């Protein structure tokens, strides 16, 4: 009975076009970086821009585009020109959020299947659009790199920190110093159920990529170990360091610090009084009033011998506050000499002027404080703190994250109307840049993060801070590619993060359907914390986690087989199946590999030769271990163990093979690594 409908559906589905195009709407800085990031995934994007750009931030950008369409991306005919029906994903990244939202609606009407990646800061709208449009994700390009900035500010030890299923996971960089408990241990020995070594760098080398190191190396002094660890250890460690620093301060140091603080405050007050005209007037008026008060009190006391000092003082104060008529109001002969009466009149006139000025200044100060009687902020940290210059949207996020990490910090806002209720626990300086920097104890700061919206001002501040403190971590925010390249030469040790370049990688990865949970920087590369749900035709389906890790170059940090609970730092020996959830750390190249399913096989060239067993139980246990770690059939493993000595036919990745040998040896099975001569993967 439903035959026509079924036919129609069949025809419609057979006519469904292959989704193989990517569309970027808006070729500003963010859009251009998205095109580059998509190119890194091996795809050329079609782009829509309202007007023909006169110049490109990324010089060869037109070569990276499949097509450039000039027009309004909200219009259906422009979207159709851009082959919207064939688009697998549309990245709406214009700087106008209204245009982005309107285009998202138009796109969904024209293509119900395409993935929409929206640039938007409006969380509520994003949630509603996600519910209504489906296959939709929205990012705030300023929010994504906030973690990267905050982590860079923490210094060199913590590279990444994020929450997965409510549990804290950190990526750390550990430099081996004398007496370090990790010194002289084998790398695999550092691994635990909560910790996994990601990389090992010899003192003289640079990190090339994850997994390109030998797990059986002994850790030496000066080496660096990069590791991932679950649980609260990172925050606890950071706090512990701060506490112990505080404890180490001797009493004399505390006294010296109080004295220095007092001196600083006094100098600061004097500098401010003389720097600012209005305060000069206040000071001048105050001095005049005090001098007159003093002279008046002395004169009254000496002329009226019977009076007290306090009465003389009161009479002078009354006159200064305009009370001449209260003392000399009645017209009758007085025994007070004319010169004293004249002086009293002068006191009243001068007092009226100068006390008036003081009243006016007090009123102005009260009004400018906007009656915000907020809690007093803590003092500016003396040393080892983070200075955040620029408390715009991204600056506020960085400050909040650093507060979450319990880092001593001071925020500097150049905006006089800055919301003074923001993070009341954070010391805050508001004012012009020269004054603010001088108050922030820059010379002893651990890190300086410069995040204003003005790139040139950021450069100026960076150069100023470098003059004061050469050793601090300097983190700079830029937008443009060109500036970033030039600044790297000018400030060689600074970390210069392009907001849009970092965010674009997340936008591009999201275009392929991946859920980007967070990102951080590792050796100038962006590492994306990416979540996958394994599907039937997925390039992850049926693989061991070790094969995913070494084959695609990622690190698996969470695995879940719903409805079971998730496991952090999962075992390498789990086989992925449809419905599994996997969270990995990956750079954009690794994500592309997963997208293409192009497992790296060159490094899968290690074999294990099993020599002998010492007990009969070891034969059984050995076969189980071989099957579990190599992923080979259990029968193959049993056959191997029954015909020793023999080589396991399945080639393995080096770390996988090393672990197999180690576990076999622990189970009293003698085994060793075998590789192709002249070919070490």
């Amino acid at each position, binding site marked *: 009975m439903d035959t026509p409908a079924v036919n129609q559906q069949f025809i419609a589905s057979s006519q469904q076009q292959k989704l193989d195009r990517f569309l970027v709407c808006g070729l500003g800085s963010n859009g251009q970086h998205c095109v580059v990031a998509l190119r890194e995934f091996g795809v050329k994007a079609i782009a829509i821009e309202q007007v023909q750009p006169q110049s490109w931030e990324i010089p060869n950008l037109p070569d990276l585009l499949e097509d450039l369409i000039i027009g309004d991306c909200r219009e259906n005919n422009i979207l159709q020109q851009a082959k919207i029906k064939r688009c697998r994903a549309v990245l709406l990244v214009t700087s106008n959020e209204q245009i982005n939202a309107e285009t998202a609606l138009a796109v969904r009407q024209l293509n119900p299947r395409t993935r929409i990646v929206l640039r938007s800061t409006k969380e509520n709208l994003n949630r509603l659009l996600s519910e209504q449009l489906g296959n939709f994700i929205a990012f705030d390009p300023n929010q994504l790199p906030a973690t990267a900035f905050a982590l860079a500010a923490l210094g060199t030890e913590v590279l990444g920190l994020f929450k997965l299923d409510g549990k804290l996971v950190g990526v750390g960089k550990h430099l081996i110093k004398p007496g370090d408990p990790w010194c002289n241990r084998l790398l695999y020995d550092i691994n635990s159920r909560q910790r996994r070594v990601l990389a090992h760098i010899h003192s003289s080398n640079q990190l090339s990529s994850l997994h390109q190191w030998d797990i059986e190396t002994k850790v030496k002094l000066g080496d660096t170990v990069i590791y991932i660890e679950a649980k609260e250890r990172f925050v606890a460690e950071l706090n512990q360091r701060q506490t112990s620093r505080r404890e180490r301060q001797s009493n004399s140091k505390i006294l010296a610090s109080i004295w220095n603080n007092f001196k600083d405050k006094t100098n600061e007050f004097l500098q401010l009084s003389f720097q600012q005209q209005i305060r000069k007037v206040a000071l001048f008026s105050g001095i005049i009033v005090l001098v007159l008060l003093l002279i008046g009190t002395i004169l009254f006391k000496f002329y009226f011998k019977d009076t007290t000092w306090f009465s003389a003082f009161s009479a002078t104060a009354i006159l200064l506050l305009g009370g001449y008529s209260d003392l000399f109001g009645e017209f009758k002969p007085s025994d007070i000499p004319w010169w004293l009466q004249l002086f009293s009149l002068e006191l009243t006139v001068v007092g009226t002027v100068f006390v008036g000025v003081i009243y006016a200044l007090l009123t102005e100060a009260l009004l400018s404080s906007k009656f915000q009687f907020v809690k007093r902020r803590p003092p500016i940290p003396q040393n080892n703190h983070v200075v955040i210059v620029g408390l715009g949207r991204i600056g506020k996020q960085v400050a909040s994250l650093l507060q979450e990490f319990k880092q001593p910090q001071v925020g500097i806002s150049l905006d006089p109307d800055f919301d003074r209720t923001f993070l009341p626990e954070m010391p805050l300086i508001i004012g012009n840049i020269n004054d603010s920097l001088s108050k922030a104890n820059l010379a002893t700061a651990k890190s300086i993060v410069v995040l204003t919206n003005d790139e040139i001002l950021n450069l100026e501040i960076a150069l100023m801070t470098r003059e004061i403190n050469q050793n601090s971590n300097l983190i700079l925010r830029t937008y443009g590619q060109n500036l970033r390249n030039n600044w790297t030469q000018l400030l060689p040790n600074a970390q210069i993060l392009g907001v849009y370049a970092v965010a674009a990688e997340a936008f591009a990865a999201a275009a392929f359907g991946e859920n980007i949970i967070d990102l951080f920087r590792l050796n100038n590369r962006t590492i994306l914390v990416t979540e996958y749900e394994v599907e*039937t035709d*997925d*390039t*992850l*389906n*049926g*693989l061991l986690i070790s*094969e995913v890790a070494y*084959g695609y170059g990622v690190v698996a940090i969470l695995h879940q087989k719903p409805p079971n609970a998730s496991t952090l730092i999962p075992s390498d020996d789990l086989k992925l*199946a*449809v419905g599994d959830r996997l969270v990995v750390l990956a750079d954009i190249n690794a994500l592309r590999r997963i997208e*293409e*399913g*192009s*497992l*790296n*096989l*060159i490094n*899968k*060239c290690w074999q294990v030769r099993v020599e002998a067993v010492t007990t009969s139980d070891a034969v059984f246990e050995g076969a189980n271990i071989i099957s579990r770690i190599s992923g080979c059939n259990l029968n193959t493993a049993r056959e191997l163990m029954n015909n020793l000595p023999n080589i396991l*036919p*399945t*080639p393995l990745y080096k770390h996988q093979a090393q672990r197999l040998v180690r576990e076999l040896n622990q189970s009293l099975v003698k085994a060793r690594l075998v590789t*192709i*001569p*002249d*070919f070490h*993967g």
Partner: protein
Amino acid sequence: MTNEPEINSQQLKLAALSDTLCAALKYGEEGFQIAVRILQNETGQMRLAAYHVIWQELDETGRKKLLKYLSQHSN
């Protein structure tokens, strides 16, 4: 239960792939080139399975040749 047909089709595909590769590798250099091209066209689990089959069919010289080919054609 719902995954059974999928598993079967996957196993069938693996078996067919294995047969094709084994057959191809019997035909010297040309067969090797075909097998490697099949390997390069596969993704994920099938790519891994194809690699294992080729690896196990080759001797040490062949394996060196395979790794050299892959390193030259890796992206």
